[in-house]
Each structure stands twice: as C-alpha cells, then as structure tokens.
C-alpha cells in the first residue's frame, strides 16, 4: 500500500452490493464518447463521491466496468459518467435510453488533493478521455475559487472533432479567473486553435513552480511526458498527481486484478502522487 498518498474515502455500505439506478439522460459527446446521467431507482441514501473516485457500472447481462465519476461533487443527487464506447459493455451502455436500468457499486478509490491544493496555483492537464475524471476536481476548485491561486486547464485531444464538453469549455474560457488551453494533435485548415501535443502547452501556462500543484490524466505515456515537462518547469514530483487505469474488478483490493507492483489501483488509487508511482511507469513487466 502507498504511504502518505492521496486520501482514501471510507463508506459504511457493503461495497459488493449493486444498487439499481435509472438512466436519466444520455448525451453523445463525440462520435465514440457519451455522458450518462443516473438517478437511484430506490430511495436509498447515496454515498457521497469525491473528485477522482470511480464507480463500477453494471449493464445487466453483459458485465461490470469501472468508470470515473465526471459530475459535480456539489450536486450529489445524480451520478454523471463520461466514457468512450470501446468494449461490449460500453457499446451497450451507449445504446441505453432514458428509463433503462443500470447497476451501480461505489464510489471507490482515492480522491484528487483539492484540500492540499488550497492556496496553490493549479494545473489540470488532461489528454483525450482523461478530461472526465478531472472535471469534478475543476468543478470543486471553481466553486471554491478564492481558495486557490492561478488555475489553468490544459487539454489535448486527437482532433477538433474529439473535444469533449465543448459548451462547457466555452463557458470556462469566458471566465477571467481560469486559463483554458486546448490543443489537438492534428487539424485541417479551418481549425484556429493550437496544434501540438498537450505537453507543449505546459510552458505556456502561468504558474509559480514553487507553489503549484498539478493533476494529470491521460494515456500513461502522456502522463509520463507531462510529468517530465512539469518537472522541467520546476514542479516537484510530490506535487504532481496522476490517475491510473487498470483492470479494476472488485473495487476494494480483494481480487487482485488491478495490482500494479505493490499497489491495488482500485483501493490505493486511482489517484496517486507521481513520486510514488514514477518507478512503476518505466517497468515493462508491470
């Protein structure tokens, strides 16, 4: 188990018990990503989630998968998840309609260090489908804006067509207390924004390296290179946080499917401090 890592969240509920939820809304974000909004089917008390945590979502008859919570922690009456349709379960989930039922276990895992980040400049670095797990942290920071220094969102995607939450990004961009940088890996002539990988945005972001904290989510290679670039700008590894993705099954560190070196990603993560995981990143055997 990781010592002094991000804070874990405890719940009295039986973690193996699945609760029925109704699909309230399903919105297509891009050609292969969607946001699903869920409400409990029974009058049960929902366990409050913290930014960074995930739920196990069960499509009946097909299977259960871990998906990060991407909703506002200030609104605990509904669960919001954004994911990409890549496997049998997510492809079936994308076809669900309002009123369909789904099973939910959770929330599980460690949370983003929004308390530890108070008083600091914040860098939120997202790559591709890495934005949804970071959105709850951004919601929290924006709703407690005075508690933080400069806040920057750095977001990279494959093409302009793959940008998630476009309307929300437009609103965030209009704010005077938030810097939003977006880049795409490739674009045709009509795109007027940045082109280049997300790491190229890091030198452009305004932050004091001695008093900043970064939260990074994306493919592991992207997180590794982002951490290198952040360190090049003077940020120390103990102020860089990442969220890992592995084959989570039980959600409570029993089954061992998500074991990564000495940690269980579902229980000790998914949010980790980079200095505690940087050796794991470069071990091919893991």
């Amino acid at each position, binding site marked *: 188990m990781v010592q002094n890592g991000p804070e874990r969240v405890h719940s009295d509920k039986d973690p193996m018990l699945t609760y029925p939820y109704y699909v309230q809304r399903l919105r297509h974000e891009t050609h*292969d990503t969607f946001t699903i909004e869920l409400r409990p089917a029974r009058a049960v008390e929902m366990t409050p989630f913290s930014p960074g945590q995930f739920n196990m979502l069960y499509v009946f008859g097909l299977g259960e998968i871990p998906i990060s919570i991407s909703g506002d922690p200030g609104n605990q009456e509904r669960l919001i998840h954004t994911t*990409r349709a*890549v496997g049998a379960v997510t492809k079936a989930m994308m076809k669900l309609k309002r009123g369909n039922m789904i099973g939910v276990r959770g929330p599980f895992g460690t949370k983003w260090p929004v308390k530890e980040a108070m008083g600091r400049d914040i860098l939120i670095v997202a*790559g*591709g*489908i890495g934005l949804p797990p970071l959105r709850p942290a951004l919601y929290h920071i924006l709703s407690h804006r005075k508690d933080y220094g400069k806040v920057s969102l750095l977001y*990279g*995607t*494959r093409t302009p067509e*793959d940008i998630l939450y476009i309307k929300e990004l437009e609103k965030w961009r209009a704010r005077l207390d938030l810097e939003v940088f977006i*880049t795409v*890996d*490739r*674009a*045709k*002539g009509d*795109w*007027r*924004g*940045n*082109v*280049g*990988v997300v*790491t*190229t945005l890091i030198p*452009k972001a305004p932050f004091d390296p001695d008093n900043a904290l970064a939260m990074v989510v*994306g*493919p592991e*290679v*992207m997180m590794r*290179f982002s951490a290198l670039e952040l360190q090049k700008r003077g940020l120390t590894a103990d102020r860089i946080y990442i969220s890992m993705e592995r084959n989570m099954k039980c959600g409570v560190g029993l089954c061992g499917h998500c074991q990564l070196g000495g940690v269980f990603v579902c229980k000790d993560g998914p949010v980790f401090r980079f200095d505690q995981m940087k050796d794991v990143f470069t071990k091919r055997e893991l």
Partner: protein
Amino acid sequence: MQTLEPLLASHPFLKNLNPEHVKLLVGCATNKVFNPGEFLSQEGEDADLFYFIRDGKVVVEIYSPEHGPITIQTLDGGEILGWSWLVPPYRWRFDARALETTRAIVMDGKCIRQKCENDHSLGYEMMKRFAEIIADRVEATRLQLLDLYGK
C-alpha cells in the same frame, strides 16, 4: 535612437544570453507585423530568415493536393519559427502563416551565419539553444505520431 536590443533580449529564446552577443544579433534583426493569412515562409523557397515571435499565432502547415493545408504545429508569442536557415540547402520545408495579427522579430539567417562563423562562442550559444528547440519538437512529434488518444 531606440534599437531592437531590449526586444531581442526579452525574448525567451535569448534569455541570459551574453549582452555582447545580443548586440551582435541586433544588426541582423528587423521588426515586422504580419496580418492574418500572411505567409512567413513558403515551402521550397530560400530560407534566409527565422523569426522570434513576440505575440500572435503562427500555423506551420504542409499542403496536400488531396486534403489542402494540414496543420502540423502552432506557435505563439515567445516561440521561434525556422531552423532551415541553419542547415543546407537553406530552404523552407513547410509553409508558415499568421493565423492572427502577429508581431515578430525577423532575423537575417545569412547575417547570423556569418557572425557565428566569426564568433564561435556566439555560434555555440545559438547551436545549443536551437538544439534544445529541435529536441523538444522531435519529442513532441514522436508523441504526435504515437496517436496516444486513439483506441
């Protein structure tokens, strides 16, 4: 008379450069504003220049008959455009176009090459700084090639 020396010295590329070297570079520099759509470089043409971008946005692109202009990279204030002036046969490999009104210091590559030949300490400084830029861009290009966000 006001010269471009303070503007050059304040560009991140030349941070902490020996002031004597900055003075040498000033003789090869002119200040210019590019309107949106105006080309800073065109593929195949002589690359006798490079640019310290002061502010604005420049798009580096390659033209394909099938797809039209494809953007490879964008550059903002504080960045640098062009290293073809350093490497024979000194021809631009890509098009570069101002996406918005862009202010840049235009450097005469032939002039700089001559000054670097005459003063190897300046030449070594320029090479070190360009090597860092080139290494960063190669790394970024490799990450782009990985298509990290694909399925």
